């Protein structure tokens, strides 16, 4: 105060309205929360757990779905499989011998590959009882199959037009594991239908055709020679150009078996993965509900703490009213505090949820998909929860008459 200036010589407009700044509201709230750190922290933790649960659940399911969709993208959705359906008489029909070449004549079909299941087993040695098949099917095929499936080798070499005439076998990924063979066991002999076959290669997993994973593939020529393969395929794999999938699908049964189209079943393996991706998102609603309950509890925690503050800090409220705070100033102060607590918890929880997502997705080898919409809407939700939870106490605090507040001290 400038020396010698009389205090009452300043004549402000006594009723002039000047709103309090957002910065000041924030500063007051931070000071008030900082003075009660433990309580603030514990209250924020309640909200944080709720938000973390929500974000992590959304994040993990998004990551899993993103991974499935990426797999689909990689594998393509244009693979169709043709198998014998059920005939009217109920017996299991087979596909006609010429089915593959018929299918290959359909315009949009890019590649065709056929396999024929053989009634023989593959075992590590002939000393293992024939009954222990390990669930591995022995199928006969030719060099054309692997490009149709988009199969890659994990080890060894592929079945080509030369090798398919000799007793050589290519193992699916699961089949190799069940036989106890690893990449460096390529070249070993295994017993196929009582004959020694050389393992020439092991395939990588095929998510779109898991039945191949559980199979041992031998050449059609050697199968006809040794095991009496007939050449009527049990499954035909068809790659179609993307735009014509539905069209090809509709003409396939009649093409394969003009006499009895109903005896042919056509499926699209990618639909299984797509359904799995969709199923993931419906499954999370339960966890989202749990997260919402946690949030509600957190919100109640804030309401409780703010109500306590309104009672406990009556003298501060009285003082502020004496200093010239209007009711809306008091409401603003309490609301800011509640929203800050909630926001703090929300930010903490969102960060935690993202961390959990990253950790879990990495541990599963998935793509990491941070659910930004979940994070943003979660934060918005916490702010809303804070405001609602703080509103009642704020109004209570503002309603108390200043004299009562001062007397309470």
């Amino acid at each position: 105060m400038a020396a010698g200036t009389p205090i009452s010589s300043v004549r402000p407009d006594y009723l002039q309205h000047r709103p309090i700044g957002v910065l000041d509201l924030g500063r007051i709230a931070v000071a008030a929360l900082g003075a009660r750190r433990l309580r603030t922290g514990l209250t924020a933790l309640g909200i944080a757990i709720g938000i973390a649960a929500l974000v992590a659940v959304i994040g993990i399911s998004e990551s899993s779905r993103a991974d499935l969709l990426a797999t689909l993208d990689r594998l393509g959705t244009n693979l169709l499989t043709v198998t014998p359906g059920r005939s009217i008489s109920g017996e299991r029909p087979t596909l006609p011998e010429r089915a593959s070449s018929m299918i290959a004549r359909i315009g949009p079909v890019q590649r065709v590959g056929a396999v024929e299941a053989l009634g023989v087993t593959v075992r590590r040695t002939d000393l293992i009882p024939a009954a222990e098949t390990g669930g591995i099917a022995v199928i006969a095929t030719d060099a054309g199959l692997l490009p149709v499936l988009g199969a890659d080798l994990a080890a060894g070499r592929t079945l080509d037009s030369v090798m398919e005439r000799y007793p050589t076998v290519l193992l699916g990924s699961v089949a190799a594991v069940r036989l106890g063979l690893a990449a460096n066991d390529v070249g070993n002999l295994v017993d196929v239908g009582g004959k020694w076959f050389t393992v020439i290669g092991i395939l990588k997993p095929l998510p779109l055709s898991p039945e191949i994973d559980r199979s041992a593939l031998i050449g059609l020529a050697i199968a006809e020679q040794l095991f009496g393969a007939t050449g009527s395929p049990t499954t035909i794999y068809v790659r179609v150009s993307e735009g014509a999938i539905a069209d090809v699908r509709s003409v396939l049964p009649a093409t394969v078996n003009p006499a009895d189209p109903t005896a042919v079943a056509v499926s699209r393996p990618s639909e299984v993965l797509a359904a799995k991706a969709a199923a993931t998102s419906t499954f999370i609603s339960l966890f989202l509900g749990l997260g919402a309950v946690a949030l509600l509890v957190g919100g109640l925690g804030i309401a409780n703490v703010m109500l306590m503050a309104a009672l406990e800090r009556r003298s501060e409220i009285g003082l502020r009213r004496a200093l010239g705070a209007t009711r809306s100033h008091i409401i603003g102060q309490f609301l800011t505090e509640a929203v800050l607590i909630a926001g703090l918890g929300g930010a903490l929880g969102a960060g935690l949820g993202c961390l959990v997502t990253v950790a879990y997705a990495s541990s599963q080898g998935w793509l990491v998909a941070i659910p930004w919409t979940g994070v943003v809407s979660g934060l918005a939700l916490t702010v809303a929860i804070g405001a609602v939870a703080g509103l009642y106490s704020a109004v209570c605090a503002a309603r108390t008459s200043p004299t009562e507040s001062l007397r309470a001290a």
Partner: protein
Amino acid sequence: MSAAIELLGVGKEYEGWPPVVALRDVDLVIGEGELVALVGPSGSGKSTMLHLMGTLDRPTTGTVRVAGPDVAAMNDSQLSRLRANAIGFVFQQFFLLGGESALENVADGLLYRGVDGVARREAAHQALQRVGLGHRVRHRPAQLSGGERQRVAIARALVGRPMVILADEPTGNLDSATGGELLELLLELNAEDHATIVVITHDWDLASRLPRQVEIRDGRIDGDPARVQPTGRSKLDIGLQSRSETPAATVGTH
């Protein structure tokens, strides 16, 4: 001398059964630049009077004018602004915010005027120097003695140069030596800065050291030696006032 505070025929009754009559028919005019002691035993109604003069409460009957306007005609936010701009409070319990430094506490005196932060701190600095606490700016209330805390509270009350400073038992929580020093400060602020100060106290020794004493007993003004006539009042107002006039009994000395 123009009036800073005018109470005309003021009565205050608190609801309840039986209703408590705290003040009845009080007339009091406090001029600008006055230093007045409002003295009376506990329960006499002096706190009620402070609340009415501070516009923290409204009278049941009569008119209260602070810094000009009639309180009855104003809504809550107008009253709040009047308090922010024209009235400073000093409380017996100090009411300093524990989480803030002395400077921030004093600066809060300007918070609800919408003064920007830099100007608030600047003014708070000067006010703290004015009360002799220029060296305690960064201290928290817990690090200050009782007398120092009350000085901070006084600095907060005067930082906005309000028209009136209302002090409710300002020395009530202090020992007599510290209380004496504080009283010196109030006298000095009144003499040098022409601050209008109303001190509420039950302590006649303290009251007797102030220029004017108004005694309250059972909700009435029992003695006011230096009665100031209301300025520019209508005849009706004057009539109301003379009706309630009680024999002036000078109590205490200057």
